[in-house]
């Protein structure tokens, strides 16, 4: 029996179990990547909760992103899928077109968006200028940098859209018919037939979205570095993570900065443990809460 499980056990141990145990161990040490870890007990956790002044901005940025990006992505994906499920002609073409952005690698997509949204020379602001509107500073503004990242995320929502589309076309037609026989308008049909039926997919979107938001790194790293890069100097001393003004300093970015730039891997491991606990907690909360609104077709209740 164990022999049949052994590939999975090996994989689990190597890629999940061992890193988890080592991260937990490192969180109690001072580890600078270049020499052996030195036991420091709870010092890292004390610094995390009391000493590091960048933790609160990082946490609030991540929470903001979670609160805004998850609904934005889910709603946008659902909206597009809804339109696609109703469309008659050109269905295949539009499905492809809306899915394509999801295929673009995250770094390339971010680079493209930073270029597009360049406040001085970018096409978007030039177009807005032609319409008489002075475009915002997008990635160079502390107020607009996170919304710009949300826009970037919404653009690449193809995966979620396809899943929503599959769920939408799977809603039994007879439910719509009986609803319309009962006199339900299209909005009521949406609310009482469509949404409950696809609620497992909504749950999926929310959970995946929350986990991605808690781990959000690549796009913020690239965007802040590039946006600062057009104006920032040499590698010497110019740390542009979180540009502008720590508005894109998300929790994983702070973790990276502490672990790899400041040689504080022990502290970064402590941050990672906290993130694990928070992610676990949030997911459990969502799933517990989901029993009230997720309708699983055919399940015995």
């Amino acid at each position: 029996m164990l022999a049949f499980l052994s590939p999975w056990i090996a994989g689990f141990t190597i890629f999940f179990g061992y890193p988890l145990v080592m991260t937990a161990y490192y969180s109690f040490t001072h580890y600078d990547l270049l020499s052996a870890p030195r036991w420091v007990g709870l010092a890292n956790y004390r610094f995390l909760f009391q000493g590091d002044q960048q933790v609160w901005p990082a946490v609030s940025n991540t929470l903001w992103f979670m609160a805004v990006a998850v609904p934005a992505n889910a709603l946008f994906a659902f909206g597009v899928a809804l339109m696609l499920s109703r469309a008659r002609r050109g269905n295949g073409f539009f499905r492809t077109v809306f899915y394509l952005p999801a295929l673009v690698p995250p770094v390339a997509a971010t680079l493209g968006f930073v270029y597009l949204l360049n406040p001085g020379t970018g096409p978007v602001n030039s177009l807005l200028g032609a319409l008489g509107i002075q475009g915002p500073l997008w990635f160079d503004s502390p107020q607009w940098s996170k919304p710009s990242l949300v826009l970037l995320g919404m653009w690449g929502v193809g995966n979620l859209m396809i899943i929503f589309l599959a769920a939408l076309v799977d809603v039994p037609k007879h439910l719509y018919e009986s609803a319309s026989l009962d006199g339900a308008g299209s909005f009521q049909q949406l609310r009482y037939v469509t949404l409950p039926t696809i609620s497992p997919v909504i749950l999926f979107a929310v959970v995946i979205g929350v986990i991605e938001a808690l781990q959000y790194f690549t796009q913020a790293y690239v965007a802040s570095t590039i946006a600062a890069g057009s104006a920032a100097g040499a590698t010497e001393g110019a740390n542009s993570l979180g540009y502008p003004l720590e508005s894109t300093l998300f929790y994983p970015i702070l973790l990276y900065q502490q672990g790899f730039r400041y040689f504080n891997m022990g502290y970064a491991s402590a941050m990672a443990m906290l993130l694990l606990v928070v992610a676990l907690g949030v997911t459990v909360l969502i799933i517990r809460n989901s029993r009230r609104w997720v309708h699983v077709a055919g399940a015995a209740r």
Partner: protein
Amino acid sequence: MRRLAAVMVVLLLALTAGACGGSDESKSTSSGGSGDITFWTGFTDRELGVMEDVVADFEKTHPNIHVKVVGGISDDKIVAAIRGGNAPDVAHSFDAGAYAGAYCGNGAWIDLADYMKRDGVSEDIFPAVTQTYSKFEGTRCALPMLADAYGLYYNKDMLAKAGLSGPPKTVTELMDYAKKLTVRNADGSLEVVGLDPFNGFYENIAAHWAPQWGLDWTDESGKSILSSTPGWADMLEWQKELIDWYGYDDLVRFQAKAGDEFSPQQAFERGKLAMNLDGEWRVAFIAAEHPELNYGTAPLPVDDAEPDLYGSGYTSGSIIGIPKTSDNQDAAWELLKYLATDTGALAKMANDIRNVPTTSDALQSPDIKPDENFNVFLDIFGNPNTRTTPVTVVGSANQDLVDAFAAKYQAGKVDDLQAGLANLDKAIDAQLAAAGGGQVP
């Protein structure tokens, strides 16, 4: 049988004697070490070509050693490589201030004391300020190779057109000049900016401006003294005053189209910036990319209250060392010694890369091509008031925290500057304490 054995023994003895003799010989000559080594450097493009040239010269005088040069390396890569065990034999780091503490304090780069003693290389051949950023708490794991000095570049045509003579010498003059040299478009946006002290723009970071107010970062015990030194608040207030005069958002918009710092579209080179804080390497860039630019260089202006500081500035530099994972440290040391101490090599690098050479001999070398704009930086480098940033074990954390604060202050997000600085001191001390590390005074 016995005879065969005897012959075998004699042969063996002869061979070992020969081998022993051979290796003794190679150890006793000064060019010990041979084989293939790799050298990682941060230079790219034109500057990398110069580096490869210098290494080729080295190979001519050391025919036993073959060097593979890899360019475009960043410190992240060096750290990752040391951890992975495939680090180069000689590594070159651009960011001494941020990384010397880590490399030396953790044994990542080997201690060079033995090699230096063996070959009679004294650390006094390097100017004092370069000695401080290439070692940490007494352990010297690196030698300085090429330094940067920072000063003021100014566009002579623009100054003449505005009726201004000579470069400004005090910060009050500097602000005055900056305002007079600024040109706005009809819609109010900035076309030409006199001087942009925005934190994070090109080379504008707190560390580069601090020497102009004569500022230190810590006291002897290593505690951060930003709130107890009035100069820090003065410097930040001066910068904010100028930024508010331009209009914060207008300046950000201007910066967004300023052009990448290391491309030919750099704003000063294109005539969009009248004056700029920059390093001595810009001389070579301008010569290669915009030779028609009529510009001059001068030391950065100083605080009106400290006129004696005029002529000094900020310096930092590159360091080279031998990662501990190198398996050919003898050969690596030969290359290291050549790159850091050979006057000819340093003069060549000074001429073609236009960085400041880092031995006292090389600074006086007649091989250095005279260039009035470049010589200003040599003088800044040699000025006794020229400062560098303290080396810590937490990389650039202290500088990053200060820059983040300065950026917030410039954006108008800090109501009480003094309280903010006190808080900043606390944050820096906490970061250093958390890393359990000390600081070079």
